[in-house]
């Protein structure tokens, strides 16, 4: 993958992370909670990292955009700017802008994103929204040791003050980790600490004596008592102490030491023995010793001779470009072909050398190898599987945007995000799902007044669920809106001339609901007026069907509508050999190709008027693809490429212009009419928009055999080398 693409891919991930943070922040706000400062900080960090990566690639104005956003988020996290609806809207728009910029950088035929007007907006908003530097009385931090105070960043200090002003107590937790377990240890501790309060800072203690341990003091702001802390952290190598009482705590904390100054980072005598329990950090951890050990002097610092240790935490995922998977699949395909040859050769040998036991063993081993290769292929196909959750996130943003646009209150509930589908299917699904959601928000969910009058919850709900059922995945899109009246649908169909009166009379409610999938049910007018896109459910259905899927609908007036999509887990993917013949690209199933060769034109001989080439002492009859399809012949090059095809016991060589590549392709049926063309078995898309036909080698070659009497001839004649 070029570094450009890697960077873009990382940027995309960060944009998604940013978007998720925003969605969570918003949902917390809607629930009336104060958004978690970690979320805001997380969003800030995501944009900051994004800026760093964007500065290394030339992609539109991503750097400027990120820079402004970063400043905006910094203001928000430092309390200089309120996180209100307009600000959130601004942030959400930036996500769209990022996405558009990324898309545009990859495909310049798309409309260019208007970053400048956004930058202007954000610039204006910034000057207006920023509160004057607070001249309110700053809470004193004198009880905090100078050492500590001096290294807190602006944000950390801000959060510290916020906590104090909020009446929270500040705790310092001294922890000690085994060197190699710092990451894991921190994670475990973090999750516990998060339930107790807000982690404000991590301060590494300097302890030069212990090279195999790392000590940290963690500052936490919390409304909970010291005992709660100690109880929660029992079992960790940690000791907790409280640094201040908190400005507004009631006097009930009599047993707690008051305004205790925190001596440097070595809580010497303050070590609370009860908290020093044996750590539960795995077998490597030795017994806890007092942190304070005399610094070992004369410790030779070996400089460059230290071999670099592996300190990266275990990487759990690897980003893979789909084309690399194609390459892997090709190799597997080639392996399979070679193995096939092996097996065939051995099978022949077995006949003649039946008595030789080794040959039979070899044969069995070769078959086993074939099975393993098939399994390898299946596992690589598995790698193409991605969770549908990726798509659900994008749809959550769409819901948000559309519900705003339509002035409706809608929330999206998802489940089954971990359900996996082939990446190609997931990509093809996003459009249809988006249309359905658009419809649900546009026509399904009623405006607030209507919902309230109907006694429904004011916020409409759209739910997306994905579930695996055997070889298929079922995805449901449901809304609790006004539903569809099947009688009205029926009437409309009749008036549009789509069904006759007689048909309508015997129609069931289910059949009537399915009318929405009939082309022409929604006129272009209806659609463009309401959703701004002239596409109806008939298109959605077609698209689902193209994926070899099914779609069905249920609905009840006043209650809601539910769509159910059933999709195969993977598409019909075959390994193919892409060739060129008669000036056109074709592909052939690799499984039908025994081998592919190159010959000099001069090597062609004729036998009884039929052209053959000599292949390992056998005469291989050849036929020409361009002649078979009546396509123009390539000029007389010296070399020809031949694909050897097997047909029962005959072997025939198909001459083509060029062998291009081996590839995994998704084969689609040609549809009525064209599927009856002999010799053509389907088509696939290679590259962008280039349709390539898949040939039915057996059919083509058997025609040749029949027409030219090839093969049979050869046997009868017993052709010499």
């Amino acid at each position: 993958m070029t570094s450009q693409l890697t960077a873009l891919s990382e940027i995309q991930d960060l944009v998604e992370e940013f978007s998720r943070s925003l969605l969570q922040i918003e949902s917390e706000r809607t629930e009336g909670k104060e958004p978690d400062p970690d979320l805001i900080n997380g969003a800030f960090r995501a944009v900051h990292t994004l800026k760093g990566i964007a500065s290394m690639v030339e992609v539109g104005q991503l750097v400027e955009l990120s820079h402004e956003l970063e400043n905006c988020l910094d203001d928000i996290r430092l309390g200089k700017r309120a996180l209100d609806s307009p600000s959130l809207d601004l942030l959400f728009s930036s996500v769209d802008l990022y996405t558009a910029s990324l898309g545009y950088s990859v495909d310049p035929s798309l409309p260019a994103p208007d970053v400048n007007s956004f930058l202007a907006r954000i610039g204006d908003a910034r000057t207006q929204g920023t509160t004057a530097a607070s001249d309110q009385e700053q809470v004193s931090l004198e009880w905090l040791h100078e050492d500590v105070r001096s290294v807190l960043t602006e944000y950390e200090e801000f959060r510290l003050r916020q906590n104090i002003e909020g009446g929270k107590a500040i705790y310092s937790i001294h922890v000690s980790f085994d060197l190699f377990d710092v990451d894991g240890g921190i994670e475990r501790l973090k999750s516990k600490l998060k339930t107790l309060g807000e982690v404000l800072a991590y301060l590494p203690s300097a302890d030069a004596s212990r090279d195999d341990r790392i000590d940290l003091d963690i500052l936490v702001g919390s409304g909970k008592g010291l005992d709660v802390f100690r109880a929660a952290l029992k079992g960790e190598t940690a000791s907790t102490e409280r640094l201040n009482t908190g400005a507004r705590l009631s006097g009930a904390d009599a047993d707690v030491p008051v305004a205790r100054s925190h001596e440097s980072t070595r809580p010497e005598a303050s070590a609370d023995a009860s908290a020093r329990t044996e750590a539960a950090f795995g077998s490597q951890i030795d017994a806890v010793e007092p942190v304070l050990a005399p610094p070992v002097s004369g410790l030779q610092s070996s400089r460059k001779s230290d071999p670099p240790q592996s300190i990266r935490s275990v990487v759990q995922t690897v980003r893979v470009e789909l084309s690399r998977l194609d390459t892997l699949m090709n190799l597997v395909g080639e392996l399979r072909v070679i193995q096939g040859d092996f097996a065939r050769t051995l099978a022949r040998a077995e006949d003649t050398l039946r008595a030789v036991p080794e040959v039979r063993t070899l044969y069995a081993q070769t078959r086993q190898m074939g099975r393993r290769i098939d399994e390898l292929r299946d596992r690589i196909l598995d790698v193409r599987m991605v969770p549908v959750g990726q798509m659900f996130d994008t749809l959550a943003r769409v819901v948000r945007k559309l519900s705003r646009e339509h002035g409706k209150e809608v929330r999206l509930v998802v489940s089954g995000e971990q359900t996996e589908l082939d990446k190609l299917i997931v990509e093809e699904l996003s459009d249809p799902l988006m249309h359905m959601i658009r419809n649900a928000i546009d026509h399904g969910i009623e405006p607030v007044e209507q919902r309230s009058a109907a006694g429904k919850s004011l916020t409409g709900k759209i739910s997306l669920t994905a579930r695996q059922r055997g070889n298929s995945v079922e995805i449901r899109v449901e809304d609790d809106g006004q539903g569809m009246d099947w009688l009205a649908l029926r009437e409309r169909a009749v008036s549009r001339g789509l069904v006759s009166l007689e048909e309508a009379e015997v129609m069931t409610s289910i059949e009537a609901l399915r009318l929405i999938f009939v082309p022409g049910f929604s006129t272009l007018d209806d659609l463009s007026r309401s959703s701004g896109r002239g596409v109806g459910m008939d298109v959605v259905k077609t698209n689902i069907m193209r994926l070899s899927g099914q779609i069905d609908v249920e609905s009840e007036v006043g209650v809601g509508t539910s769509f159910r999509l059933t999709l195969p887990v993977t598409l019909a993917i075959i390994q193919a050999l892409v060739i060129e013949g008669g000036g056109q690209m074709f592909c052939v199933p690799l499984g039908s190709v025994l081998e592919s060769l190159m010959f000099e034109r001069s090597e062609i001989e004729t036998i009884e008027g039929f052209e053959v080439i000599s292949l390992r002492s056998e005469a291989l009859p050849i036929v020409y693809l361009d002649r078979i399809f009546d396509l123009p012949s390539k000029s007389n090059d010296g070399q020809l490429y031949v694909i050897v095809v097997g047909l029962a016991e005959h072997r025939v060589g198909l001459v083509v212009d060029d062998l291009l590549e081996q590839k995994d392709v998704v084969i689609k049926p040609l549809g009525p009419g064209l599927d009856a063309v002999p010799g053509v078995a389907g088509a696939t898309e290679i590259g962008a928009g280039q349709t390539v036909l898949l040939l039915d080698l057996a059919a083509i070659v058997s025609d040749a055999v029949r027409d030219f009497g090839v093969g049979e001839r050869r046997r009868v004649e017993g052709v010499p080398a």
Partner: protein
Amino acid sequence: MREYVTSVLEGTVDIEFQYAESGFHALQLLSRVSPDLIITDVNMPEVSGLELLRYVRNSNRLKDTPVVVISTEGHPVDRERVKAAGASIMLEKPFDPEVLKRAVSGLLEGPPG
């Protein structure tokens, strides 16, 4: 920033680089090796450059290691604070790569700790 710094220094100075992904990793790394020079960003999540600097300066083994602190643009960090925390040199992005090169060479050749 890492790539940038590496590209600036590579070839100029005979240096072997070791990288840390985050403040925590830096701590792990520093517990194992004693580098001749540390270059760190100020703004890092969780364990910031300043906190790292304090660790280094408090450590008997590492306390004399020269530290170059770099602040990324848009975050004017209090130079005083950084100096007080014990940074040998502070650079604010965008900086002239020559300055970095000279600073690094100077610090490496400088008076032994």
